[in-house]
């Protein structure tokens, strides 16, 4: 089988199962690819090559003995460094957790292991998942494989870049305000934010508990669905995990059909502020969906203009509390402990040394928003806006089956371009954030390259909570039509590095 690194996860799994190739070989070629290109991309913070090869070896042995394994057995995966993996460094992109090795596996990792998916390593990310460019990682930025001078999106830039650089066919991201979808959008890959509670958060280092959601990332809709099916489902270790059957996402991806589907275009998420090439590819995709038999309907979600404001109060509030435990007392970095400082001073010195500027900015913002006297004006008000946005979505989904928007307003911007302008950076997630506030699900998939810069453009489908299968039904149809048009997936046009 030629060029294993460019194969889909589904193809690789079939080849491993039929012993046309082996899990060890597949793992090794990906490790080789990482060794060859990751100096340029910096998708990975830490490799787990030895344990990956050992795992692959045992998978091969079990296949040789006639055991029937799951649909992704032996396929390699890149894991965002925000999910606990027993015995392996887990930093959340922060200095404050440098050297910490969790004594336990997150539920997502447990499920990946149970499905015999091979974890290659931990991927780079914005510190504690705060950012839209992966430039806020304490360990240096990740570069976009399409153009190494550009950002790979954030906060899951490492996971998306690993896919686009053919370092791994599967990746796990986490999405708090768009951190799976926006990186997918700017790297020409597919990313899904499942319904809140659809995938367990147990073992995910929390940024904002009410918004965070782990999810699947891959280079095709079907691969994403296969991974989604592995990690989704009720987890008694996570109280907010939904105790209901997982929708048939794989079947939906395979069927890929929009005939008779009503697709709503959110008036407030279209038009203004979008890069011309993004708007153009977005409109073309809508036309293509119409050609495929979908009905395009304009809907209004009037409160969405307040989504960004509400998000940037709720997120820092929860983050300020979630990040409190990083105080140098129990694990990770401890600074200032030379006997001359009080406990409180050691905590303060550790946090000063261990947290980067974006994290500090949000902790201060959140502490302020929750403080007595300001709680009602900020946090409580933001929660009310959140309720109104959820109602907007509910009303829209009474009229349509799915909603659509561009995923991000622009293609990948240059590294450093928005680093000193937090507001400009925050605006990048304007179309993805409402989804997290409402707890619904959404997918980003590539719909072409912007003519002006030749960079990928992402298209977002949104569906009601627990209707994740609709994303795959619509996404599968759109992807198939685009592949027909181009003769291949868009990712095939990525530079070979």
């Amino acid at each position, binding site marked *: 089988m030629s060029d294993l690194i460019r194969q889909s996860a589904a193809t690789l799994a079939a080849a491993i199962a039929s012993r046309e190739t082996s899990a060890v070989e597949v793992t090794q070629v990906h490790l080789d690819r990482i060794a060859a290109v990751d100096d340029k991309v910096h998708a990975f913070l830490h490799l787990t090559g030895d344990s990956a090869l050992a795992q692959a070896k045992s998978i091969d042995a079990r296949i040789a003995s006639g055991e029937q394994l799951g649909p992704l057995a032996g396929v390699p995966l890149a894991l965002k460094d925000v*999910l*606990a993996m027993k015995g392996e460094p887990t930093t959340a992109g922060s200095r404050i957790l440098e050297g*910490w090795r*969790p004594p336990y596996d997150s539920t997502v990792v447990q499920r990946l292991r149970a499905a015999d998916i091979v974890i290659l390593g931990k991927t780079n990310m914005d510190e504690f998942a705060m950012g839209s460019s992966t430039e806020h990682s304490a360990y240096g930025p990740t570069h976009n494989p399409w153009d190494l001078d550009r950002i790979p999106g954030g906060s899951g830039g490492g996971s998306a870049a690993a896919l686009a650089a053919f370092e791994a066919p599967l990746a796990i991201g986490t999405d708090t305000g768009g951190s799976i979808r926006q990186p997918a959008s700017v790297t020409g890959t597919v990313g899904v934010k499942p319904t809140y509670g659809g995938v367990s958060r*147990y073992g995910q280092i*929390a940024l904002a508990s009410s918004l965070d959601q782990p999810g699947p990332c891959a280079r095709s809709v079907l691969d994403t669905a296969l991974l989604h099916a592995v990690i989704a489902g009720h987890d008694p270790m996570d109280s907010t995990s939904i105790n209901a059957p997982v929708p048939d996402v794989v079947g939906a991806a395979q069927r890929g059909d929009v005939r008779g589907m009503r697709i709503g275009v959110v008036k407030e998420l279209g038009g203004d502020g979008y890069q011309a090439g993004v708007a153009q590819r977005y409109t073309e995709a809508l036309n293509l969906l119409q050609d495929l038999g979908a009905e395009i309907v304009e809907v209004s979600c009037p409160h969405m203009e307040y989504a960004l404001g509400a998000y940037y109060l709720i997120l820092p509030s929860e983050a300020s*509390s979630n990040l409190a435990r990083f105080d140098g007392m129990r694990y990770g970095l401890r600074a200032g402990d030379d006997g001359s400082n009080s*406990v409180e001073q050691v905590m303060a010195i550790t946090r000063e040394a261990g947290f980067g500027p974006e994290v500090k900015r949000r902790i201060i913002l959140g502490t302020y928003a929750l403080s007595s006297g300001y709680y009602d004006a900020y*946090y409580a008000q933001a929660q009310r806006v959140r309720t109104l946005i959820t109602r907007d979505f509910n009303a829209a989904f009474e009229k349509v089956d799915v909603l659509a928007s561009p995923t991000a307003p622009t293609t990948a911007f240059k590294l450093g371009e928005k680093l000193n302008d937090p507001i400009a950076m925050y605006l990048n997630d304007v179309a993805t954030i409402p989804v997290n506030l409402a707890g619904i699900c959404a997918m980003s998939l590539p719909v072409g390259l912007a003519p002006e810069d030749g960079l990928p453009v992402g298209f977002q489908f949104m569906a009601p909570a627990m209707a994740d299968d609709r994303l795959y039904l619509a996404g599968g149809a759109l992807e198939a039509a685009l592949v027909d048009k181009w003769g291949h997936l868009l990712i095939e046009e990525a530079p070979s590095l």
Partner: protein
Amino acid sequence: MSSATDVYLPYDEAISRYEPIIGIETHVELGTNSKMWCGCSTAFGAEANTHVCPVCLGLPGSMPVVNRQAIESTIRIGLALNCTIADWCRFARKNYFYPDMPKDYQISQYDEPLCFDGYLDVTVATDDGPQVVRVEIERVHMEEDTGKLSHTGGATGRIHGADYSLVDYNRAGIPLIEIVTKTVIGTGKLAPEVARAYVTELRDVMRALEVSDVRMEEGSMRCDVNLSLNKPGDGWGTRSETKNVNSLRSVERAVRSEIERQASVLDSGGRVIQETRHFNEDTGRSTSGRSKEQAEDYRYFPEPDLLPMAPSRDWVEELRAGLPEMPSVKRARLMIEWQISEFELQTLANSGAIERVEATIAIGVDSSAARKWWTGELLRVANEQGLELDQLNVTPQDIQQVEVLIASGALNDKLARQVFEGLIGGEGTVDAIVQSRGLAVVSDDGALLAAIDEALAGQPDVAEKIKSGKVQAAGAIVGAVMKATRGQADAAKVRSLLLERLGVSE
């Protein structure tokens, strides 16, 4: 600063000028098998940091899952305290930094407690007889315990001056409930007694519900006492909060001492400041802690890692139907059944003997005998050894056997006490101790007559007195016989044998 407050105003003077307003917050550790958010054991006294997991250590990524047994216990407590049970409520995060707090926030209930608006009636003794006082309960809410710090080096055992500090997280995440009273007004000089009676009653309710072992000395129940003084005609005064009062006696002493202290401050023209104070069990006085003026802002907000709780009404009614008899109801019943006074009952209750007595009566022992042993000899020994009655090595069955032997004349009270001594010392069963210690009553006439003759021979003058009709002098001979038989003779029988021997009648 030497201040007038070092010498407090005498209580009678203080209370004649000011009206105390009290409020009590009681923390109770629930006796669940596992912790509040995880499956770790709650067993007391284990080696440090052996009952821990990622969840109760608050490791990055870990998440809490609420313990259903703890919710059930809290609802039962709420029902027992006549509270309304919320049909929907949430947990909140209370954010503050402390080295023994694994997450640097405590999951608690803030403005949405599980139980609220209840009351507990308590009885206090007054010069005019028992008086019932209703203490209103504002709320019963759930929270979690923290770890335990120990500071090594330094003279005081406190964090300042210590060389290093060790943390044991075995207790971290143990379910706690907090029971908060509304302000208690109008108790006047009885305030200290009301406070003690309330905490005592609360402890008894917890025991009856079997939701906690409520051992104040081990910290499984602890109180914070809020107190302010009000000068008639003036507005409410500033309150202080005396933390971690760890015995029933201390609750009463803390209230009394704080009334004296605040009255002294006010009398000398000073101002009571809002602060937390620490009660010292040895001195009976409190010392100033952190001032509320620098109090932290806890930045409460709803805990996003837990779903809201909505206990079904059916479940609540099922729990209500399963409540045991409450201590006050039980006391009223026992006073009638056992024919005892309120005072005696209070003694029984305070000593924790009621359950033991009940169990003893239940297997057929006469009620007065059961009470006599448990509140007499056994309680004395327990107090001497610093134990609870149920920690003594004596069972209701033992009492029953002893009583059978007494009824048959084989033991008397004095010998029975020796049997109990043997039981507590682990010398074996009642029969084995009677055997090994040779405790059976001497009832062989021959042996007794020999002992009588010997005693008469030793005290011929007494023998003459008795013969001359001074029967009351017989006591000296009986005493000598009892001494000679090491108490194992039946004194009444010795007396009658003696008089018979001397040919004297009563």
